[in-house]
């Protein structure tokens, strides 16, 4: 391709100056950028107000694209279903028959559970939803894993509230704008969730890897008891995340933990539920002075 136009300054003093000043302005831009980075590293909250306001502004467009995304998914699912419907129907009938018997068993278990809980005088803690929202956008070109939801301060959201979908934990609210909120997804490298194995409660930490998987780190060292296919649920230790929220399924065993896959893939999630911050009940105070000695 030929050079578009002669942009050499030549002997023209005016052209030389304008070239010089445009370079100088470019360097100033870089210096300003470096300054902004230093500020945002020193105080990460410095620009959160600006970012929240910016997300609030683009929220209507985000809602439209979220609707478009879900329509796109439905279309693909319908096309796929057209080819697999017969097989799927047979499978569902078989599963329904199995499920009916299991339902009866589950009812019996539930009744027994209620009886035992009444005996122990335990309070039934229902998950209390603050708001239901769309996931409208995400930082899909960045190394960090953030998403935006279309509910904000006006819907009663506050910083730290856990966000979950029907299938599992999605993340927690990081910054709250007026009509939108930024969610730190559990796959982000800065997200750390205390978890336990659903089956027997082996305690661990789940940290995001940044690439869609989760690194499970065991708290107890020694023989690694994890197996492929183990489901990790949030343990609620330290508060914030309600215990028992399904989170990830183990796919690969490492020496001191495992790599797990997230159960609620955010790209398949239409609606999410924002829950209240979970706080464990404080232990009862010791009765007498001799309680500490034994």
């Amino acid at each position, binding site marked *: *391709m*030929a050079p*578009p136009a002669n*942009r050499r300054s030549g002997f023209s003093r005016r052209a030389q100056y304008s070239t010089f000043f*445009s*370079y100088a*302005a*470019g*360097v*100033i*831009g*870089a210096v*300003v*950028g*470096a*300054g*902004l*980075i230093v*500020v*945002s*590293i020193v105080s*990460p909250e410095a*620009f959160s107000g*600006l*970012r929240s306001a*910016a*997300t609030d502004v*683009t929220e209507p*467009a*985000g809602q439209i*694209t979220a609707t478009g*995304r879900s329509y796109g998914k439905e279309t693909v699912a319908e096309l796929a279903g057209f080819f697999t419907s017969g097989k799927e129907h047979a499978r569902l009938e078989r599963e329904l028959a199995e499920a009916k018997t299991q339902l009866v068993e589950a009812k019996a278990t539930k009744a027994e559970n209620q009886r035992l809980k009444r005996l122990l005088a335990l309070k039934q803690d229902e998950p209390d939803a603050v708001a239901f929202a769309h*996931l*409208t*956008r*995400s*930082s*899909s*070109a*960045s*190394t*960090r*894993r*953030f*998403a*935006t939801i279309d509910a904000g301060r006006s819907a009663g959201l506050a910083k730290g509230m856990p966000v979950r979908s029907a299938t599992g934990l999605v993340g927690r609210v990081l910054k709250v704008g007026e009509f939108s909120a930024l969610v730190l*997804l559990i*796959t*982000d*490298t*800065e997200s750390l969730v205390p978890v336990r194995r659903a089956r027997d409660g082996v305690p661990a930490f789940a940290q995001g*890897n*940044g*690439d*869609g998987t989760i690194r499970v780190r065991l708290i107890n060292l020694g023989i690694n008891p994890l197996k492929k296919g183990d489901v990790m649920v949030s343990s609620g230790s330290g508060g914030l995340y309600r215990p028992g929220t399904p989170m990830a399924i183990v796919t690969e065993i490492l020496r001191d933990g495992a790599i797990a896959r*997230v159960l609620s*893939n*955010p*790209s398949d*999630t239409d609606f999410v539920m924002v829950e209240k911050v979970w706080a464990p009940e404080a232990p009862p105070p010791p009765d007498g002075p001799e309680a500490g000695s034994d």
Partner: protein
Amino acid sequence: MSRLSSDDGPARTRINRAPSRLLAVTLPWLSILLGSLLPGWLLIASAPVLPPIGFLLFVAWRQLRPGLLPIWSGLPLGLFDDLYSGQPFGAAVLLWSIAAIVLELIEARVPWRNFLTDWLVAIGLMIAYIVLGLALANLAGASASLRIVVPQIVISVFSYPLVGRLVALMDRFRLTPFVVQR
């Protein structure tokens, strides 16, 4: 005579029409701003998979029309990208400004370029942009490994010619004469 034929585009075929001045000036800026917003809307990703479309458009516009966007355009455009990208605030301002200066220097030294050299230069810039973006995010506390940006780099490298095509299309649209001259 071939320049008058319809194959050469609409720029030569209409008498008494001129391109819209407003469109000609604002379209590059608007397209880059939209490109900064677009990756977030396309998909709720759990890994960095989409190319930084705003940056790709920025490089493509500067390669197609050197001097159309001033060297300092990295400052306002990067500032807008930072609002939505999720990287530490200021990363795009810094990296886009440096990219603009590098492109200007290359343009001054190698004015005769072809598709391949443009693509190679863009590949270098994209890899540097994504890796330095990761480094800046890690400096701000992300501690992610280099492995997670490899898919993004590959996708960016192969989507750049497409973005270049899109920019060429937009450039034709920008210079289409449809405003009636009096």
